[in-house]
């Protein structure tokens, strides 16, 4: 087959062969539900009578970002070694034809977040999940920047810099790139953030690794609760409050707005679980400030997605429609900052 005509499923099989060797019998790949940037494939192989269940994530040639994929691989390796429930990373690489790939162990479970948040079948799982998430998040946050020195380009604050200040600055730079029309409320929110950052005591802890996309949609689960934390693409250096707040953003609650933590628990119960699991004192005010910043980041993602359509990069009515979700996020930012009460 010529490399030009090769689909990401063929790439996945080829990557699996690199891992399992020429003697392995490899199944037809099955496409898994997944992100807009990559295709994920379930691939089974049999080597010397024993079977291996793999997930191979493939970034198509035009979208491949090998440095990012390697970063995810290196961080997963450390996290898996520390006992975090996550896929075991097996191989990372790229083909001359331009695609890159990440081979991982396949973990059982479901990843449909709406079902997790709303179905009676998972009521028991929801009850256990908060403590399990807090436990694994604490393990992630014990990883220091030095522990992941092999991971390329782990962006984060300079030595001695407040992680909140660093990520606020990054978020504004993103905002200026992605905005499609003026958003006075977001510009006002950046000034609100600056006042908070100046007012809040600087964190005394050293910066740590954060997951970077810690939301209910990246949780794999079964009826006993957490089986695996997925999607480590956004991993970087920060502070625990960043991941803690991202789980609370309104957009991922699936309508359960009284259960701010991912639609499964009240915010305070979640923060308390994180304190118990980590032994750290978590500043509620920092979490609240991060939640505003995280909503700004989500607003930026909605702009970026709409822009991908408008620029002609990816023709999609779905991406276009996401552009109109910026408004509900701005409303949430005004709610969280108490702008209504003061206005």
């Amino acid at each position: 087959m010529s490399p030009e005509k090769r689909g990401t499923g063929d790439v996945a099989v080829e990557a699996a062969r690199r891992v399992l060797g020429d003697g392995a019998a490899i199944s037809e790949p099955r496409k898994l539900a997944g992100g807009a940037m990559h295709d994920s494939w379930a691939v089974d192989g049999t080597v010397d009578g024993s079977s291996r269940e793999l997930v191979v994530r493939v970034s198509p040639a035009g979208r491949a970002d090998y440095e990012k994929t390697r970063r995810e691989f290196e961080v997963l390796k450390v996290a898996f070694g520390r006992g975090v429930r996550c896929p075991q990373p097996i191989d990372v690489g790229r083909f001359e034809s331009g695609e890159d790939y990440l081979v991982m162990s396949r973990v059982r479970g479901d990843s449909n977040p709406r079902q997790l948040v709303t179905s009676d079948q998972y009521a028991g799982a929801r009850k256990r999940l908060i403590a399990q998430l807090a436990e694994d998040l604490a393990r992630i946050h014990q990883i220091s920047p030095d522990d992941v020195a092999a991971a390329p380009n782990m962006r984060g604050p300079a030595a001695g810099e407040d992680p909140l200040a660093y990520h606020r600055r990054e978020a504004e730079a993103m905002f200026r790139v992605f905005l499609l029309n003026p958003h006075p409320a977001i510009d006002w929110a950046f000034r609100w953030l600056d006042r908070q950052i100046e007012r809040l005591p600087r964190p005394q802890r050293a910066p740590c690794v954060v997951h970077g996309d810690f939301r209910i949609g990246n949780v794999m689960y079964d009826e006993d609760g957490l089986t695996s934390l997925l999607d480590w693409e956004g991993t970087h250096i920060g502070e625990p409050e960043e991941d803690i707040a991202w789980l609370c953003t309104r957009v991922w609650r699936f309508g359960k707005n009284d259960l701010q933590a991912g639609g499964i628990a009240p915010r305070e119960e979640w923060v308390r679980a994180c304190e118990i699991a980590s032994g750290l004192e978590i500043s509620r005010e920092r979490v609240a400030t991060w939640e505003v910043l995280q909503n700004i980041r989500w607003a930026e993602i909605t702009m970026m997605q709409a822009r991908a359509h408008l620029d002609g990069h990816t023709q999609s009515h779905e991406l276009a429609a996401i552009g109109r979700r910026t408004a509900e996020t701005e409303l949430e930012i005004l709610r969280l900052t108490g702008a209504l009460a003061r206005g």
Partner: protein
Amino acid sequence: MQDRPTAVELLDALGGFMRDRAENARDRWERFQFQVAANSIGIIKRELELEDGFMRAEWAGLDRLLGAEEMPKEQAALAVRLGERNAELVEQIRSGAFDGEAEARLLPHLWETIVNKVRVASPNEAL
């Protein structure tokens, strides 16, 4: 004057088609795509019905914050000038003109304009 069905009636018909296709979809992906399409039809419909009044309200709010200005009569010109005035408002916010006590004048305007955007884009999220 166009014949009936009106634009809104045509959109209702289209929205009904999308919802029907969503209900009878072959898989989760197709159902989701038609739901999103039906939602977008809803946005267009609400915008046709509501946006005229919302733009006038936004203009009046900007008059209070930036000083009064005569409102363009034509809808397209109004939209362009509203965009420019919002950019002016952003410049003033960034320069600190609405820090401190002046914030109390800014926030009700931000709240009103955003609630109006949400009434069009995602009415279930509006207060």
